[in-house]
């Protein structure tokens, strides 16, 4: 299996607060990898390093290496703007831009210089279909995205990320505010998508991790406790802490 993201001895602190302590982990191509752990475990912070959204925080100090296809993205020479075309992100709370459904999806492609109406339309339709939203919105693409329900908004955000044609999709607790039906739709979409993308799913929902991921990593207090195929992590965990977490004893 090919390594897509290689994180090597990543340490990160906010001021004096060390959030990540020497994380080393490889994420493989065309898989869904789940990052789980209680809040404060650092799982979301790792995501924000991979897409360099961490740049917008103050007082951050980062050491170590994060490589995508063997190239260190923490290097000075790596432009975060270019990086974010390859690494798409879906946040915990769906945040549509205050414009139409169509324009939300077309936002990324337009930034990449695509302006032909037919091509944009093709991208919008394709992305919405992959995110299992097309049938619900195809007749009202020009209405405001803010009018969609929470579950639809989150799928819109997924579609918007797909429209970037990224290689990697990071999802930061994408279903935390959603009902079970919307959650199921997103999970279905992710299962279809992994053949084309490398997906990292951060979630506090162990059942979700068990359902749809191929690999699972358990983080606790900024440390990687356990990382293995999802089957092994959930059936025969090596560490006591992992077992306790999976069984819901804390977290």
């Amino acid at each position, binding site marked *: 299996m090919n390594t897509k993201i290689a994180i090597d001895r990543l340490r990160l602190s906010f001021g004096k607060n060390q959030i990540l302590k020497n994380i080393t982990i490889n994420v493989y191509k065309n898989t869904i990898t789940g990052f789980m752990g209680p809040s404060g475990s650092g799982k979301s912070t790792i995501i924000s390093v991979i*897409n360099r*959204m961490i740049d*917008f925080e*103050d007082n951050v100090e980062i050491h170590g290496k994060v490589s995508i296809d063997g190239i260190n993205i923490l290097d000075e020479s790596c432009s975060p*703007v*270019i990086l*974010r*075309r390859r690494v*798409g*992100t879906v*946040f915990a*709370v769906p*945040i549509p*831009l*205050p414009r139409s459904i169509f324009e939300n999806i077309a*936002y*990324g492609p337009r*930034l*990449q210089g695509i302006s032909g109406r037919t091509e944009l339309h093709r991208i919008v339709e394709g992305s919405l279909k992959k995110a299992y939203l097309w049938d619900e919105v195809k007749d009202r693409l020009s209405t405001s995205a803010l009018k969609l329900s929470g579950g639809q908004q989150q799928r819109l*955000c997924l579609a*918007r*990320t797909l429209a*970037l044609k990224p290689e990697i999709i990071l999802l930061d607790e994408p279903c935390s505010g959603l009902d079970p039906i919307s959650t199921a739709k997103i999970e279905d979409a992710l299962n279809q998508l992994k053949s084309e993308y490398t997906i990292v799913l951060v979630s506090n929902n162990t059942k979700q991790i068990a359902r749809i991921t191929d690999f699972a990593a358990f983080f606790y207090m900024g440390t990687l406790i356990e990382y293995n195929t999802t089957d092994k992590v959930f059936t025969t965990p090596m560490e006591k802490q992992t077992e306790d977490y999976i069984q819901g004893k804390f977290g």
Partner: protein
Amino acid sequence: MRRINPRFIDKIVQIVFNMQAFFTVSILIVIVAIIFIKGFPYVNPEFIFASPEDMGRHGGIFPSIAGTIQLALLSILFATPLGVGTAIFLTEYTRESTFTKLIRFGVESLAGIPSILYGLFGFIFFVIKLKMGWSLLAGVLTITIMILPTIIRTSEEAIRSVPRQLRIVSYSLSATKWETIKKVVLPAAAPGILTGIMLSIGRAVGETAAVIFTMGSSLRLPLSIMDSGRTMAVHFYILAREGISMEKAYGTALVLVLSILSINVLAYYVMHRAISKYS
């Protein structure tokens, strides 16, 4: 002697405050009412569209209306990019530092300078030293500086009130900072910025001291930016001060006040709609 019942005092105080507020509001209503009632008979299409004759004793005020519009629009044209740009810089491109404090100090100081000092400065700098003479251009440049602080402050407030999450989403979709500002921040902040622009137009329209010493008071319509001209406010001032014609003065005052009030009402309306949209 028994103490007076505090509840009784409370009632009295309440009545006093009600009356006081009523009185204050009445004064201000009376001011507007006088202008409307006294000016109304003299305002007609001829008054609006004709040129003044005999120093303004007869005829209309068309050149001064045109002069006012020219001055206000050109000043806005200069001040808006400068002001909005400054606001963008202060909110998006820096953290609070000595540099931003210095710029804020500059903006605050400009806001506190009375208009006669702008007139004094515009006169010596644009009219005399830069040899523009009394001209539309000198007036526009002076008013541009004068309204700049208003535009900066309202724009900054509007830009700050755009939710941070929208920026984050835009960045995550691979936008650069400028793309994010252009496509997400400015559209969301537009109503607030527009409010500031309209308030500034109102100020430019009503200004006299800073205009009369820079743009001059020629009665003719300025046909180039190097021509002198007069705004409605200046025309009104000259009519009233030199006792040329009370009728024309009242008429001009009505047109002047009506334009400013409607610009300001529009500004508040835009702001109010923007606020209710977000909450």
